[in-house]
């Protein structure tokens, strides 16, 4: 089949249906496991405890245990327990998550010092924004310089290569000690998590710029500064933009670390807390919200990229 020849483009219709399928398929699997009792459902949700002393309505017991108690009760001629097949508590059904998604945004926080979900979410977004912004402000120029000049590269990259293996979470306590307990250490964690990778990735992207553009510019009498600002920078811009899109995803993965240190806050703190209460419907709801925000950001940045870099082949797909 032609689709298995590498890089064969797809017809628009096929593309669209496959995009839909990529979301529909996991959802379908989730629905099947949740709503078809024959699939999995290793527990029984007690409806009526009957004569079993330790059963409570709404309790989850393992199927085998339920069967044993049921047989015991029948043998003694006592009241029979009833129940329905259920999945473990950590796998809520789609409708439960959907409800949680709605109620999480509409329910007032239980305690006075707690925040609404949307406030938590907004707080997380600002942490990411500042952390990533500082990372870009320092990382992009340094990365481009490393990629453009071998001397700068030799001077910085070996050390950065070493530092980037430091686990960002390890800096948590240090960041709190230095920067206090509020937002500053969280921003610092996002920065540490993305900056070193950013320098190396951008340096590599810069090195990949085809030398023919530099050579052409030199034979046209371009000064050293012009080579950097009018050839290297515009030449790598579309790829640099793509790198930043990927690195922004990394920033979100460091968010969970950032929000656990100092004064707890944000969407991932919400997740941790809800997991502790075993409100897994809320956990899934929050994870999905993060996914949606990430996806939305990426789609918007992708569209912006097409407008910003009309000459770039890869951004035309």
């Amino acid at each position, binding site marked *: 089949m032609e689709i298995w020849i590498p890089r064969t483009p797809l017809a628009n219709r096929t593309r669209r249906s496959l995009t839909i399928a990529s979301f529909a398929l996991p959802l379908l699997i989730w629905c099947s496991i949740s709503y078809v009792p024959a699939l999995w459902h290793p527990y029984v949700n007690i409806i009526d405890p009957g004569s079993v002393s330790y059963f409570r309505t709404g309790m989850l017991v393992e199927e085998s245990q339920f069967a044993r108690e049921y047989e015991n009760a029948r043998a003694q001629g006592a009241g029979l327990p009833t129940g329905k097949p259920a999945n473990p508590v950590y796998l809520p059904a789609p409708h439960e998550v959907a409800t949680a998604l709605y109620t999480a945004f509409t329910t007032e926080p239980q305690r006075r010092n707690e925040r609404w979900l949307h406030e938590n979410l907004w707080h997380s977004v600002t942490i990411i924004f500042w952390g990533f912004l500082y990372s870009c402000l320092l990382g992009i120029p340094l990365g481009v310089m490393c990629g453009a000049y071998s001397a700068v590269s030799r001077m910085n990259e070996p050390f950065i290569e070493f530092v980037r293996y430091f686990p960002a979470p390890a800096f948590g306590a240090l960041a709190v000690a230095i920067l206090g307990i509020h937002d500053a250490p969280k921003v610092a964690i996002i920065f540490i998590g993305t900056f070193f990778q950013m320098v190396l990735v951008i340096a590599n992207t810069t090195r990949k710029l085809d030398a*023919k*553009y530099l*050579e*052409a*510019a*030199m*034979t*046209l*009498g*371009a*000064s050293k500064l*012009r080579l950097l600002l*009018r*050839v290297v920078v*515009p*030449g790598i*811009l579309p790829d640099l933009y793509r790198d930043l899109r990927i690195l922004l995803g990394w920033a979100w993965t460091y968010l969970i670390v950032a929000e656990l240190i100092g004064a707890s806050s944000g969407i991932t703190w919400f997740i941790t807390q809800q997991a502790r209460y075993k409100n897994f419907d809320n956990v899934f709801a929050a994870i999905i919200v993060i996914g949606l925000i990430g996806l939305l950001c990426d789609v918007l940045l992708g569209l912006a990229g097409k407008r910003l*870099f*009309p*000459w*770039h*082949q890869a951004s035309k797909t």
Partner: protein
Amino acid sequence: MNTHSSTPMLAFDQLGKSFTVDGDEQQVLTDISAQVNRREFLAIVGASGCGKSTLIRIAAGLEAPSSGQVLLENRPVTGPGPERGMVFQQFSLFPWLTVKHNVMFGLRSRGHSKATSEEIALQWVTLVGLAKHADYLPSQLSGGMQQRVAIARALAPSPKVLLMDEPFAALDPQTRSRMQAYLIDIWRNVDVTIIFVTHDLEEAVLLADRVLVLAPNPGRLEATFSINLPREASGRDRYSPAFVEKLRSLQTLTNESAQDLEPDLDMIRLARVDGRAS
């Protein structure tokens, strides 16, 4: 050869170049001495691996010679400069700039104001017949059009020498012959000296006043070959008996110089036979 006392526009003075590959020193060019006069059209031909691209890159200042020097009007060349424009085989227009801005690049680099640069650039774009495409991006142009822009870009800052490294090799035959006519037309109207590297002997006879024949292993100057054929309004007639005769003698000359390669070919044949036998 120069009976006049006028200095050559560009001269190769006992030029040598060697690379070190895996600890082995490889001589790419050895003892190249040649001159090109003002407004002359010089072609450099030779089998692949004879170092003709290296030679023109040294002239451009993109590579440094291992020995000897390149002289531009008696001053040694130490690096790339706007007095030596270059057109590459690979399409090397800046993909992020429009046709007009590509041509403006060299002018801006030489310190011309934006307005002046734009004016000169538009004249050049018009001269290469792309006035309607001034605001197009390179990716929207055909290969032939891109190379026309590349010629305009190289010539706009008024270089003394235009270096061309197999500029039409990547074009289809029809486009190539149109580009050859274009180039002669431009060269007639502009005060510029052209050094043109090609592996196509017919192209060399068609365009050049004089042809340098390089021989490989190591790259050396085998012969200098004058064309001395009249140019009609539309360039030379490649089917005239005189043209065919010139081409034939140039071919004989290059075949002789490439004879060093023959033993290698035999080795390859033998190796193949052995491979099949085993």
